[in-house]
Structure formats: C-alpha cells, structure tokens
C-alpha cells in the first residue's frame, strides 16, 4: 500500500511533465496536421537554458527568484525557437505533399541535437538539488512514503500552467482563432483571421510549454544531456496519441497515464522493460480505440 502510494506520486509527477510536452505535439497536429518531431528537442533546449541560467545565478539570488528567471528565460527562448522552426522548416513546405514537413521535422530535430552537442558538449551536465527535503506522508513498517517539495512544486507549477493555458484556449480571442483555424483554415481566413500568425503563435505557445517541462525535468532529475529530447519526445508523442491526438485534455490524460504506467511497471516488474510496457499499452488501446482515449473520429469530407 505504502509502496503503491509512492509509485503513484512518482508516476503523477513524471506524467505531468510528459503531459506538458504532449500538448505541444497535439496542438501542432491539430492546427496543421503534422507531427512536429523537433518538439522534443525544443524541450531539451528548454532544459539547457534552465541549467545555464540557474548555474549563472547560483549564489547571486534566492532560489525562488532564480527559478522564476529560469522558467521565464527558458519559455521566451524556446518560444523564439518554436517560431523560427516553423518559419524555416515547415512554412515553406505547407501545401507540399504530406511527408515533406515530416522529413523536414526529423531533419530539424537532428540539427538541434547536434547544435546543442557541439555548443554545450556531449557530456551529462548536473545541478545540485535546489529544493531539498519533503514531507513524510506515511511510515509503514519502515517503508517511508515521501512527497518531496520538488515533486509538489512540479505538480503545482504544471497545474497552474495548464489552468492558464486552458483559459487561453477556451476563453480568449486567440484561443478561439486557434480552434477555428484547426477546424477550417480557409474559412477562418475569410472571417479575417490571419492564419499564418495564428499558426506561429501556436508554435510559440507549444514551445513555451515544452520549456516549462524542460526546466522541471532538469529540477527533478538534476542531470541532462543533449539527447534527453529524443526519449522524452517519443514518450510525449505516445502520450498525445494515447489520449487522442488533436485533443488537449487527451494529451494531459495520456501523459499522466504514461507516467503512471512507467512508475508502476518499474516498481512492480522490471525497470528495463518500462518502455516496452508503455508501448504495449499504447498498442492495445489503439486496437480498440483507434483515435485514442479522447480523440474525435475523423470524418472524411465528401
């Protein structure tokens, strides 16, 4: 029981990070119908901006202020990356055949990984734990269930970011424009919506969310390298597909489920096969629900 509770806490924390990245995949898929494979690398760049800022600020400011600066700097820089990636690699290919932007995305992903490898080095980089300690929730026969302050911080930040994001999408003109472009870009343009700008903003927002996830990943694990974007990106993509790609609540749900599956599989079976467990569940879900847990069924327009 205590062990399960601990795995639940670990899984939810990890799942929140996956969910934040998955939103970026699902938003871009919804609005231009392509998988942005460079998104995981934007997440990685977010983590690197975080480590650079936090290392530079060590000793200069208090920890909360340093974290705030790291989050904001990371979100802004990743927003610029997202914007530029769309302009350079995807927009010129819009209207081309469907595979073209996909290949371009994979190329962009390789470019970003190698660029960070060259500029930041191939070795792992680490920071000390910035928010040490935690609270003991339960002590059962010597097994201590701990909720670390770090985990609590990650959960709170994620929920706050998701709340702001949900408000943006459901209540503001920008969110309405995004949903309109997603459903019928040409019609949205006829109503006066600048679709190019809306798509750019979608990339910027998705990248900023990935930046938040990147900094939190850094804080949680304390160790990053130029290759973290690949694994986290694939997991988040899986989360988006599991939840139903194109569906924002689906992305978060998928992220949480994958975090939980990983945590429980690692805890009760073998760590080595945790990825196999995730993808097996994905395969099983897609067999029975081809459009994911919360996905809409595609209706072909005639």
């Amino acid at each position: 029981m205590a062990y399960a509770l601990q795995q639940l806490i670990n899984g939810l924390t990890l799942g929140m990070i996956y969910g934040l990245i998955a939103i970026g995949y699902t938003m871009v898929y919804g609005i231009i119908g392509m998988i942005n494979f460079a998104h995981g690398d934007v997440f990685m760049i977010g983590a690197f901006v975080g480590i650079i800022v936090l290392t530079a600020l060590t000793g200069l400011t208090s920890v909360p202020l340093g974290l705030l600066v790291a989050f904001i700097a990371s979100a802004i820089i990743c927003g610029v990356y997202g914007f530029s990636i769309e302009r350079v690699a995807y927009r010129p290919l819009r209207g081309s055949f469907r595979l073209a932007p996909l290949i371009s995305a994979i190329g962009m992903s390789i470019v970003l990984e190698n660029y960070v490898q060259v500029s930041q080095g191939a070795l792992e980089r680490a920071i000390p734990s910035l928010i040490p300690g935690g609270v003991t929730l339960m002590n059962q026969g010597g097994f201590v269930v701990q909720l670390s302050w770090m985990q609590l911080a990650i959960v709170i930040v994620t929920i706050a970011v998701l709340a702001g994001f949900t408000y943006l999408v459901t209540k503001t003109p920008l969110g309405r424009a995004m949903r309109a472009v997603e459903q019928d870009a040409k019609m949205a343009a006829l109503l006066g919506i600048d679709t190019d700008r809306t798509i750019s903003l979608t990339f910027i927002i998705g990248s900023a969310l990935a930046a938040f996830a990147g900094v939190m990943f850094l804080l949680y694990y304390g160790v990053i390298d130029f290759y973290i974007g690949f694994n986290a990106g694939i997991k988040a993509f899986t989360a988006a597909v599991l939840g139903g790609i194109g569906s924002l609540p689906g992305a978060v749900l998928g992220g949480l489920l994958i975090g939980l599956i990983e945590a429980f599989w690692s805890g009760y079976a073998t760590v080595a096969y945790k990825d196999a467990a995730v993808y097996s569940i994905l395969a099983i879900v897609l067999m029975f629900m081809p459009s994911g847990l919360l996905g809409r069924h595609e209706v072909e327009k005639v």
Partner: protein
Amino acid sequence: MNVLTVTNLTMRFGGLTAVNNVSFTAARGHITAIIGPNGAGKTTLFNCITGFYKPSAGSIAVSPEPGKAVQLEKLPGHAIARKGRVARTFQNIRLFGGMTALENLMVAQHNRLQAATGFGVLGVLGIGGYRAAERRGIELARHWLEQTGLVERADDPAGALPYGAQRRLEIARAMCTEPALLCLDEPAAGLNPRESAGLNALLRKIREGGCSLLLIEHDMGVVMNLSDHIIVLDHGKKIADGTPAEIRADPVVIGAYLGEGEEDDPDAPVAEHAA
C-alpha cells in the same frame, strides 16, 4: 457609388474558361442576384469576388463605404474581411462544427477583439479594454442570434444544429464581421417553403440595416421576389443584366435558361466542379 464593380473578370482552370470577361456592378443598398444554369460559372465568379480564387484576369473593386475603393484581387485572403468588408456563406455549410453557435459568431469578430486584447497578453490577464470589447462582441452576437431565431441554441455545438438553423447561423456569422457586402451562395437550397419565407424576411432586414447583398440562387421564387437587380450568366458569359421584370421578359434569358429547364441542362460545361 456602387458597392461592387467587376471589370472584365476572367477565371481559367487549365484549358477551361469558367468565367469569361464578365463585367457588372452591384448598387449600394441593393440585393443583386446572379442566376444561370448549372455550370454557368456562378460559383466561380462568387469565389473570385470573395477572395477564394485569384482571378486570371480583370479587376474587382469593392467600396466598403462611399468614397473609398479597395482592389480585392490584390488583398491577401485574411484582409478581405477587414479591408474589403466582404463576407460570404457557402452552398455546403462551413461552420466550425466543434464550436458553439456563440463561439462561431465570436470568431467572426476576431480582429476587433484581438486588437483589444493587446495581442493576447492583456486578454489572458483579463485587463484593459478587453472586457468591454468582449461584452460588445457578445451583444453583437446576441443581436444576430435574435435576428436568426437562434438565441436558445447559443451554447449548442454548431454541428449539432438542424440544417435550416445552420444556414441561418452561417448568415449570422457573416453579419458579425460587419460587412458592407454580404455574398450568399444559394441561401435557400434545401430549405422548406416556410424556412424560405423566413429567409426572405431576414435578407430584407439585412438590406434595411445598410448592408448590400449579392446572391446566387436557383429558387426563382426567391430571386424574382427579393432582388433589385439580376445578372444572368451562361457558359461563363454574361447574357443579361436588369431588373426582375426585364429579365423575365428577356428572350435571350428565356432561350438560354428558363426555356431549357434550369436544373438539368445536359450540354452545360461542368465548370463548377472545381469549386
């Protein structure tokens, strides 16, 4: 000054000339109808006027207010609603089915609302003139929901509304862009006689509100009864232009159109399939 002046407009798809050197004007405050047999090029002409296609040759001048003219064929797609103040509806309805009726009308006011949000930032924080602008937007949306009899369905997904209601909602959405010229592509298609009569009343009300209308219609009852001015197309060319009474008496029109049967002309070129 006319609200719309089309000069020597030509639209080709490969070797097919769907619209051939057509010129006409639509007077401000009038309801102008474009009629013609299937494949006459009506929808293609319409798509050029509303910026859906870039014409092969010719010019389209819109005058959103007296003393001001905009060359429509030179504007990028999203600027047509704002600068040209032209709005349109579709023969096959194109609502945002996953959004509510009210949201559909709010999307149509995007430019005004987005400007009031300080491009998103103030909107997220909910400060500045945004709340007032949003309230005005909802007022305008409510006005058109009332005019189209859809107030009770405001929060239903647009895709779940019955067909006639979707048609009316599309007109309401177009009106929420506050157009100077509203273009309607077969607004009466698929409506029963009662709905059709309601549509006539709605369109007259829109004209009284100061908006000019341009419509394509197959239903001759609607056209003759509603229009101030009629343009007849056949095989991509304009063959007549006049008041309903003149058109009804025009031997060329009767020969080309009314006499041959309006619905199934086997010789008509299939120019509209590209639309």
